């Protein structure tokens, strides 16, 4: 088991380094860092001095090593566009995105599993077919349209919810949360629904497919042949076996949720990392792009690790128990 954990950790580090390499390459080869940081009027001597200071004349591996060292310290350089340290920007915006992502994932998981189980058990029912059709429409609706639609309905027509922003947020140390204020909570509803919707349809279809698959297995057939009641078969047997792939895939999706937040944050003017990233792409603000990339990679790697451990806990076949000697 220790070997399993160590192996996962090692893989995680390799991935992070690979992404760092990509980020670093972006820095070095896309655009001119010096030109981005000084004005047009700077003399050749000034540029040369800056290049020297930035270490641009050092050999590639050395530069990369410095880059990684800086990363480890949380130093991402200065934003080309905003002139502020990227680190500060990150700290400001991370809580908004994480809060949004976590709530959306929870929403998607709870309702996705419930609906998935329902449509799997009641395969041919009217309600089940209706839900499946709606889910197909859901997959065909781009996230931004859902956001716009919700804003139009709830903010413009009904005036129940605010149409943009986070509302009032409470500061807890370096973290900010919108859950403790009324306006904060109201502001969260539509973005969470929008971001979570795609996830929900995905999870629902996955759970349904896995349940149907599980209900076709031999052990379910054998359970039926033993007279086990259908209710136990659906929930105790099929669902339990479904949970492993579902939870692992849903967990792995969390990184995607963070990235999908880009669209939702833009539509709702949510002050998170995603909105920051879009601006960075528009203005070719490399340090911010690189920092965002590293952050997303970190989230991916951590969720992968978490899911590996979870898988381990859920599936007894992995826990190193060996088969008895053949008889």
């Amino acid at each position: 088991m220790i070997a399993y954990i160590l192996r996962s950790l090692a893989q995680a580090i390799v991935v992070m380094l690979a992404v760092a390499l990509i980020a670093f390459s972006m820095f070095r080869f896309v655009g001119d860092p010096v030109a981005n940081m000084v004005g047009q009027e700077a003399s050749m001597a000034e540029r040369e001095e800056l290049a020297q200071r930035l270490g641009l004349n050092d050999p590639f591996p050395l530069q990369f090593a410095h880059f990684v060292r800086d990363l480890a310290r949380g130093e991402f350089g200065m934003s080309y566009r905003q002139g502020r340290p990227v680190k500060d920007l990150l700290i400001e915006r991370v809580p908004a995105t994480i809060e949004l992502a976590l709530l959306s994932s929870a929403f998607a998981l709870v309702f996705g599993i419930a609906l998935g189980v329902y449509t799997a058990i009641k395969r041919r029912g009217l309600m089940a077919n209706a839900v499946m059709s709606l889910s197909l429409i859901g997959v065909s609706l781009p996230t931004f349209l859902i956001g716009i639609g919700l804003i139009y309905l709830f903010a413009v027509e009904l005036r129940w919810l605010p149409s943009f922003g986070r509302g009032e947020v409470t500061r807890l140390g370096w973290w900010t949360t919108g859950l403790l204020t009324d306006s904060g909570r109201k502001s969260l509803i539509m973005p969470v629904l929008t971001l979570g919707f795609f996830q929900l349809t995905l999870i629902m279809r996955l759970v349904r497919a896995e349940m149907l698959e599980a209900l076709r297995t031999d052990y379910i057939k054998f359970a039926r042949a033993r007279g086990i009641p259908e209710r136990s078969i659906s929930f105790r047997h099929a669902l339990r076996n479904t949970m492993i792939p579902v939870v692992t895939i849903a967990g792995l999706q969390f990184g995607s949720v963070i990235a999908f937040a880009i669209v939702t944050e833009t539509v709702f003017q949510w002050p998170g990392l995603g909105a920051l990233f879009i601006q960075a792409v528009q203005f070719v603000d490399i340090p911010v792009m690189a920092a965002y990339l590293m952050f997303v990679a970190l989230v991916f790697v951590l969720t992968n690790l978490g899911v590996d451990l979870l898988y381990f806990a859920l599936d007894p076949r992995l826990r190193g128990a060996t088969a008895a000697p053949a008889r």
Partner: protein
Amino acid sequence: MTTPVLSVRNLKVEFPTRRGTLTAIDEVSFDIGPGEVLGVVGESGAGKSITGTAVIGLIEPPGRIGGGEVYLRGERIDNLSQEAMRKIRGKRIGMVFQDPLTSLNPLYRIGEQLIETIQTHTTLSDSAARRRALALLTEVGIPAPETRIDNYPHQFSGGMRQRVVLALALAAEPELVIADEPTTALDVSVQAQIIALLKRLCRQHGAAVMLITHDMGVIAETADRVAVMYAGRIAEIGPVRDVIKAPLHPYTKGLMGSIPSLVGDSDRLTQIPGSMPRLTAIPSGCAFHPRCPRCFTPCPTFRPELQGEQKSQVACWLYHPFPVTAEAVP
């Protein structure tokens, strides 16, 4: 005459498909007496498994029972509600499948699966159920049952798993056990043990057995009577010794001739030319007629029914008065 444990009459199972209705088994009839072992033998696709599945009521839609009746100790069971049938499964009819690895839920300990089965059909408390589970494990020959009962299926070898499966199938003391290819997925060395165990357990519990297999050797060892199936129909049925030593139906004869034997002077295995027809293309009249070396006038047109004295029956025009013209069909 005692009531047979199982009585199947003209059972028909159909599968509606886009291109019409396929008949998987067609007018199958047989009886199994109390404590008797009936072997059901035939090639892949002959309909043996479907017969077993139909008896226990687990045919999956769109398949359905298209005709005939199934009686368990004289009571009709094929037309019961889902819930009534569920109560019969496990309690009065048990079934064992081919692959013990996939028959057991990998996420639950075998003790949990045993106790669940026991408590479904009895009102035993948790501790009483556990004691019964331990007793069952001992009976099927699992060593150190107090420890093994908390193991997961993957911690057992193939033969051990099949023993656990047998324990599960017999947990509620059914009167009939349907064993669908119980040894096919096991090592040859283990097969004999499992078959012997099955036979002994059923004898001890007084259960009748429907043993489905394509392995004639297993039948010869274990069964009292045997039914030979071909293309969804029964070709011949009778006491094992009779059918093996003196087969009546040309198909059975061909089957016996194609079994390699350690004793005897046959230097060539006889092969039946051709292959069993697919469900979509079953020949008219007697299904075997295109491949039959004794095929004659009535065979391509008229379908033979199982006829004969009580014990040995055969569906072949060689042994019964045959019709010559259409009007003479019995």
